[in-house]
Structures are given as structure tokens and as C-alpha cells.
């Protein structure tokens, strides 16, 4: 262990170094803080992955088991007294009076807040370009996007500006940026982690999850995130403790590869990397077989009805009455609403609010919302059937590697296709993890492993075995 370069340590290694007395949590915190500040102050704007960085290190008495290893947190988590604006102009300067359950839980376990990270506005986007703070950049190539919507968290972890980070995933917002930045990102089973204090995008899909340098760190963070929260009626008790993964082999493990997610629309280089990973899995003893998810091709359509429908309602509270932006100059209530929402929301958020409002309108509800819900049920059934044959389903995380800044901002549909491989799992509410599995054109490719609800421990073990075998080198992204 190299305690002279604390920033080279994974979160798990840093925990050990601190508890062994080789490193102080304050020293570690200051090192990360300095690096994050340096990036923010860079002449070229740096990676623009932090929206806020803590000015003071937390006290020396950081509790076990995490002993003060600092945590970067996506902007949309409410943090008491700390700016939390979900990447939106609408909440400029908003200081929540309370802290999200999952942030409190991690702080209580000894992971204090290092900073808040950039994101697409209200988590709507796949590139972190839709942000009131400006676009974040990919540390592998600063002309490219880090993915989104948790792009700031992904870039910070990949660049070594944070040991680990908290993200949220609605249709792929943890997994896709993790893939594009060459890190690990895990979306838990829906309900495993409390949503209380997460500024909502789509309530039935949103889930917080770890974004880390390796699979072990993801398990370590997840261990302190899961559990029933009395403040979130949709949260559930996790049936077992999250274990630190030790898997080295995949003997007896059956892996399903759905043709629906591994064919048309996936970049050649991504597929090449994916198939190489499948070969490694077989070398580790896994059986690889075809499975079918017949309704998966409709997932994106259903998602882009349901998520906007929910967001059109979730974002109605941003009306200028109580907090956040209130447009000046209005003398009538309706005028104040209209101007505030005109000025406060970005184009993509407005697009989705309009889509969702339309889908829920009287006379259209059945054709759009109700129908999309039925598709969602069928997709969940597809996975259930598939999991009768295989333990896990493997697919690329993203159809492409990181794309150029501005490349897709004018074409919403092209942007939406980024979620093609991740949205089916979101709709089914099942856990999925993305781990880096290789490079294509010098840019990371993500391998997605999905399992049945509450199979996180087994999924992490399989991911750990793959991670060991793939031995991905992330050094190129480090600052």
C-alpha cells in the first residue's frame, strides 16, 4: 500500500490505511479537496465535474467503518445548508433545510461530503451537457462528454478527483456515465435504497447507487446505503447484508446474452469489446447462452412516456411560490408561473414536461401512459422468464463510447438512444452494474451485468470475478 500517495488509493484501501494509522482522514480530505479545487480553478474550466466543494474538512472524529473517506455527491441529493439545485437554474442558490436519507446514512458511516457533482438538469440527459453549470467533460478526452446524467460523479471518480461518488439512475444515469468514463457504476434494485431527499425525476424509476473505481468499493458503499426508510414508502428492507465481493471464478454461472440488446444499433468497437469480455467469462467457467427479451426493443418508447409523465408532475412544484427562482415583472399569478418556468427550466426539461403532460392528458392517457405501463409489465415478465434459465444477463452498457461535446445536443432522439441498453433493467426494477471491459478507439467500454431483484451480492461477486480477469487499466484518465 502506497500511503505516500493517498489519492491513488481506492476507497476501500483508504479506509484500511486510515484505520491502520497510516493516513489521517483530514490529510486525505485535504488532498482531494485541493485537487477538486484545482480542477475548478483551471484556466480551461477543467472537467467541470464539481458544482460545489467543501471549504472545511470535517472533524477528526470520523466514525468507523469508513473513517472519513470523503464522498462526492450528485447535485440532486439534498444536503442541509449546502447548495442542491439538481443542475437547474430553477433552484439557483437553493439550500435545503434537510439532508437526504442516503447521504445521512453514508455520513453516519464515516463518509463525509467532499463536494456536489455536476449533472444533467433534473437528471434528464445522457451527456451532462444539460446543466445550468455548463457541460462536464470526460477525463479520457476532454472534447467528449462523460455521459449522464451522473456525468460529474463519473468524471470525478475517473479522474481521481474523488475516491468515490454517489449517483442516481433513472434510465441509465449511473451505468452509462460509468461506462463512458471507465469506472464502476451500480444501480440497485428499485426500493433497496431510500429516495428521500433525492430531487425527483421519475419516482417509479429513480434509484441512488455507487460510482466507484472498483467493484469492491461499490459493495462497500452500497452496504451503507440499503435499507428501509420510514420516510420512503417505496423502500424495502434489504434481505441480507451487502458482502464485500471475493469472486474469482464463474464456475457454474449461466450468463444470458439477449440478442435484442447486442445487435443493431451497437457500435462495432463496443460489440468487439463486449464479445471479448464474454470469452473471458467462459474462461472463468461461465456458461454463456442466448436469452430473449422480446419486449426490450419497446423499452425506450415506454420509458419516454412514463418518465416524462412522472416528471411533468414531479416538477410542478417549481412554481416560484416558495423557493428557488421567481421571475420578476409578473403581476398576475399565471404570468408569474409561466415566466418562472420559462426562465428556470432548460430546453430538455421543458421538452419532457410537455411530453409527459400530453401523455397524461384526458383522452390520451389510455393510449400513452396506460399502454406504456403494460409494456413495462411485459418487460419485467421477460426478465423473470430469462432468469429462470440464467443467473445474469450481460449486455453492453452503452451503444457507443463517449461522444463529442455538442454532437447530439441538436438531436434528442439520438441522445435518447444512449439509454437503449440500460432502460429495460430500469423498467423492470432490477439491479445492474456496469464495469469497464476494455477500450474502443482509446475510450472505455462498459459491460453491464444485470440480475434478479435483490441479487446484488451475487451480482457483485460475478462482477468482481470479471473485473479481476479483465484487469482494466484506468490510469489514462487520472489527473
Amino acid at each position, binding site marked *: 500500500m502506497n500511503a505516500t500517495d493517498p489519492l491513488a488509493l481506492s476507497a476501500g484501501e483508504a479506509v484500511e490505511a486510515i484505520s491502520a494509522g497510516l493516513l489521517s482522514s483530514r490529510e486525505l480530505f485535504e488532498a482531494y479537496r485541493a485537487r477538486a479545487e484545482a480542477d475548478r480553478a483551471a484556466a480551461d474550466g477543467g472537467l467541470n465535474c464539481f458544482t460545489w466543494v467543501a471549504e472545511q474538512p470535517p472533524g477528526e472524529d470520523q466514525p468507523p467503518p469508513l473513517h472519513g473517506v470523503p464522498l462526492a455527491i450528485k447535485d440532486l441529493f439534498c444536503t442541509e445548508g449546502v447548495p*442542491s439545485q439538481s443542475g437547474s437554474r430553477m433552484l439557483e442558490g437553493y439550500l435545503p433545510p434537510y439532508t437526504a436519507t442516503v447521504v445521512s446514512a453514508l455520513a453516519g458511516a464515516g463518509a463525509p461530503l467532499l463536494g456536489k457533482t455536476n449533472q444533467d438538469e433534473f437528471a434528464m440527459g445522457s451527456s451532462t451537457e444539460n446543466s445550468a453549470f455548463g457541460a462536464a467533460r470526460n477525463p479520457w478526452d476532454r472534447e467528449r462528454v462523460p455521459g449522464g446524467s451522473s456525468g460529474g460523479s463519473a468524471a470525478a471518480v475517473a479522474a481521481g478527483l474523488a475516491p468515490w461518488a454517489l449517483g442516481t439512475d433513472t434510465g441509465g444515469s449511473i451505468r452509462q456515465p460509468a461506462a463512458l468514463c471507465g469506472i464502476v457504476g451500480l444501480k440497485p434494485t428499485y426500493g433497496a435504497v431510500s429516495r*428521500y431527499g433525492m430531487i425527483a425525476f421519475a419516482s417509479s424509476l429513480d434509484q441512488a447507487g455507487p460510482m466507484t473505481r472498483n467493484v469492491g468499493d461499490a459493495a462497500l458503499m452500497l452496504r451503507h446505503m440499503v435499507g428501509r426508510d420510514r420516510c*420512503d414508502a417505496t423502500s424495502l428492507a434489504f434481505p441480507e447484508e451487502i458482502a464485500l465481493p471475493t469472486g474469482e471464478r464463474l464456475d457454474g454461472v449461466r450468463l444470458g446474452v439477449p440478442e435484442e440488446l447486442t445487435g443493431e444499433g451497437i457500435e462495432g468497437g463496443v460489440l468487439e469489446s463486449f464479445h471479448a469480455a464474454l470469452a473471458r467469462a467462459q474462461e472463468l467457467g461461465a456458461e454463456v447462452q442466448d436469452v430473449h427479451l422480446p419486449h426490450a426493443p419497446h423499452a425506450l418508447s415506454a420509458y419516454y412516456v412514463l418518465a416524462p409523465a412522472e416528471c411533468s408532475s414531479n416538477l410542478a412544484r417549481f412554481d416560484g411560490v416558495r423557493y428557488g427562482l421567481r421571475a420578476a415583472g409578473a403581476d398576475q*399569478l399565471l404570468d408569474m408561473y409561466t415566466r418562472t418556468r420559462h426562465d428556470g427550466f432548460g430546453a430538455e426539461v421543458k421538452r419532457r414536461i410537455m411530453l409527459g403532460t400530453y401523455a397524461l392528458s384526458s383522452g390520451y392517457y389510455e393510449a400513452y401512459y396506460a399502454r406504456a405501463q403494460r409494456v413495462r409489465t411485459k418487460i419485467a415478465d421477460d426478465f423473470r422468464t430469462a432468469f429462470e434459465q440464467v443467473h445474469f444477463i450481460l449486455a453492453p452498457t452503452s451503444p457507443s463510447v463517449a461522444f463529442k461535446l455538442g454532437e447530439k445536443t441538436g438531436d434528442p432522439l439520438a441522445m435518447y438512444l444512449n439509454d437503449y441498453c440500460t432502460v429495460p433493467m430500469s423498467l423492470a426494477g432490477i439491479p445492474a452494474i456496469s464495469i469497464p471491459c476494455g477500450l474502443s478507439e482509446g475510450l472505455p467500454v462498459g459491460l453491464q451485468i444485470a440480475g434478479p431483484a435483490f441479487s446484488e451480492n451475487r451480482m457483485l461477486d460475478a462482477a468482481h470475478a470479471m473485473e479481476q480477469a479483465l484487469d482494466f487499466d484506468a490510469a489514462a484518465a487520472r489527473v
Partner: protein
Amino acid sequence: MRQRPVSEAGREGGGTGRTAGESTFEPVIGLEIHVQLATLTKMFCACEPSFGDPPNTHTCPVCLGLPGSLPVANERAVHFGLMIGLALGSELAPRSVFHRKNYFYPDLPKGYQISQYDEPLCRGGTLGEVRIHRVHLEEDAAKLIHVGASGRIHGSDASIVDFNRGGTPLAEIVTEPDLRSAEQASDWLKLLRTTLRQLGVSTVNMEEGSLRCDANISLRVAGSSALGVKTELKNMNSFRFIERGIRAEIARQEQLLKGGGQVVQETLHFDPASGAITSLRSKEEAHDYRYFPEPDLLPVAIGADMIATARAAMPELPADRAERYQHEIGLTEESARLLAFRADLGDYFETALASGAEPAPPPQALANWIATDLVGRLEEGEDPADSRVQAHALAALVGMVSAKRVSVGAGRQVLDKLVADGGSDPAAIVEAEGLRALDGESELSSLVAAALEANADAAERVRAGNAKAIGPIVGYVMRESKGRADGTEVARLVNEQLGV
């Protein structure tokens, strides 16, 4: 919000001559009642519901609709909802779903109200002569206070919001259109209020807004079964205003129809001060609420255990109690309803009846004494159990009066004593005050004879067949006996001694 006056015709005294003239119209009225449930916490958060506290002192991230906050349904509110359903004989849903009702207004911090839509907690039922359509749970809006001359949002200088009320649990009870007059609507609402009070699920106080009522009103040609175009009259906050408002709207519609006009479907506001009815919004302006299932809450599964718990918590309801008083105890319908619909009187009545007083009071006499003599001597609305008159003392007194041991007049004097000083033995008061009834054979006979002598003219007229002339004679006996004589007995003796 746009408002335009639609009529001044509804002013009180503006005429409700719906039976006059050639075509007669029948009003058809349905009510939507909002009841604040008396839970310890709000519908979806842990704040305490309150009335009259300083503004915005009972709030939290959830009921303020702050970003990231989530609702958690109040189990007690569901329990109360089930009790209401049981009281109304509703069908209780095995699975009930909360929906979001989306619209923008400053009293609605999330931009949607969590309510119920196509899977309410209870469906159907009846109370009295009125069928119930449904009962569902929802959260109350915050309270808007409009600063400035108008007192309403239109034309006010500013509007301020008090979120203390926001998120208070509400049960919305919707009736079928079974009511036919303003008076009937008001009477029925009183029955509902008594029922809800008896259930203990709400303070049901219209002035404080824990009971609120909207009315859907239409007219149709008498005898027709088709429904006319309805208007919705909002938020009348007293029984008097409900009656006046409905009457005014019936008159307005009638005048329109008789003039060959058409009723327009719209939402109306009744101003009790001026009697004016103004339009809040027309059907075209009606919101599209974009209902969809609330994704932050799971459907409520109503288990057999929850229903059993609600059933076990049910008290006897006013309608059942009135039925029992009338058919088992033998009270008149009027007395039975009177005692049953004021639970404190009913409870006192039953305590008195069961007190073992000797001689036992006949139930009807006891009911009359409670409803008239006792209530008349107490503060308005005072629970007799809180007065100094012990139930068994009243029972004993009524027993003595009924057995003619004490006259009615003397009995009332004893009651005055009991109200003032308490005491458990009315017989002792009778003795102490010398109020024992005069004996028919001896004392009373001689007193009557003396009265006839003192009122010879009157006695002559009675003898000649003028029965009304007996007044001064009876009056003399009463005066002389200090009210101890029984009036009926006196009259009998007068006639007997005069040979009439």
C-alpha cells in the same frame, strides 16, 4: 381567476316560487363533503394538524412540497376512512390507490394533490334517505389569505399562504343526487355531522373548516327522471349558508329556465354577505387534472384485520340509536331522533333510565324532561352529564311526577334546585320545600271548595257550560298550594264539586 356575476336573483327573499306558475321544477341536489380527520399527524407527514396556531408553525419538507420530500400514508386516516365506510354501509375496497390530481395553485405546494381517483377506499352506501356514491381520502390544501380590499385572490394586493392546514387528512364523501330541497340538504348534513361526531373521526366544525360542503344543483321538470344541467356551489361554511346558498341557486336556475334560458355547467361561489352567486369557472375552463397513480406510494391493501379493527372501534350510530329508542324503548320518532342525534343527551337518557330510580320514570316522560326541562335550564349545547343534575336524581324526580306524588309544577321547582345545588335525592328536596302533591281526597278537595267559594262568578259560568271559565278557579288552587296541586286533578275535582 376570472369572476363574473351571474345573478343577483338568488338574494334571499328573491322568491322560490317553484310550485307557482304553469311548469313546476324539482330541484336535484347532491353533496360533496370534505371532513378533516382528527388524526394526530397529517395525511402524509408527521406534522400535527392544527387550527388557529401562528401561521406556518406546523410544517415540514413533506407538507411544504420541498424538493426531494416523499409522502407516507397515515394509517390512522385509513382506519378512520374505513370507519366512515362502515357507518355509511359502503363497500370497502380490498385495494385502494392514491392518485395525483395535477393543477397549479399557490395553496398546493407540490403542484398536485394526493387524492384518490378510480380506486377509492369506499364505494356506495346510504345514510338516512340518501345514497352515498363514494368516500375517498386526500390531503387538504394550505390556506390562502388574500391581503387587500376584496378578500379574494382577484383584485387583492397580495396573497399569503399558511401551510399549517396543508396536508391535513380529508375524507371526501360524495352523495348521489338524492336530495330535493335546501332544507332537506341541511337536515341531512346535520345527520351526517352527528354520525361523524359519534364516530370520533372529526371535530366536524363548519366554522373551523373541519366540515365543508359543496353542492351540485340542477332542476328538472317535476316528474321527469332525466337530470338537468348542474352547477357546483362551492364551500359554504355554515348550515345556514348552505340552506341559503342552495335556495338562492335553485331560484336562479328556475328564473333562467322559466325565462327560456339554459343553465350553464359551471362552478359557482355563494357570497353569504350579499347573497350573490358568482362564477368561478365554466366547464370549458375546467382543469384537466391528469390523474395518474401516485408513484411515491404503494396501493393500500385493506386486510381483514384492518376491517375488523375498524368494526371493533364503531360506536352505535345515531340512526341505529334512534331506531332502538323508537322501537325498543317506545319513544316517539321525534324524541328518539332528538336524543339519538345529540349523543350527550342520549347517553344521559340511558344512564337515567338504567339508574334504578323508584318509582321508575316512564321512558317517554323522562325523554321529555331531558329534552325540554333540563336542556332549557342548561347552557346552549352543554352536556347534562357535566351539569349538577345527576341522571338518577332526574330519573327519580320524573318517576315521582309520573306517579303524581309531585305535581309537574313542583317537579320543575325541584329541578331548579337540582340545577342550582345538585343533590342526589329529589324526594328530600320535595319534603324540605313542602312540595309534596296535595292529597286528592282531603287537602285538595277542601282547597277546591275554597276556590269555588272565592270565585263564585266563575263557578257559575262553569256550571252553565262555559268550560273555559275554569281558569281562575284552577289558578286560585295553584296559588294557594304553591304549585303542589296537579292541574288535571284540580280540574276533575272542580267539575265533580260543581256536578258538571
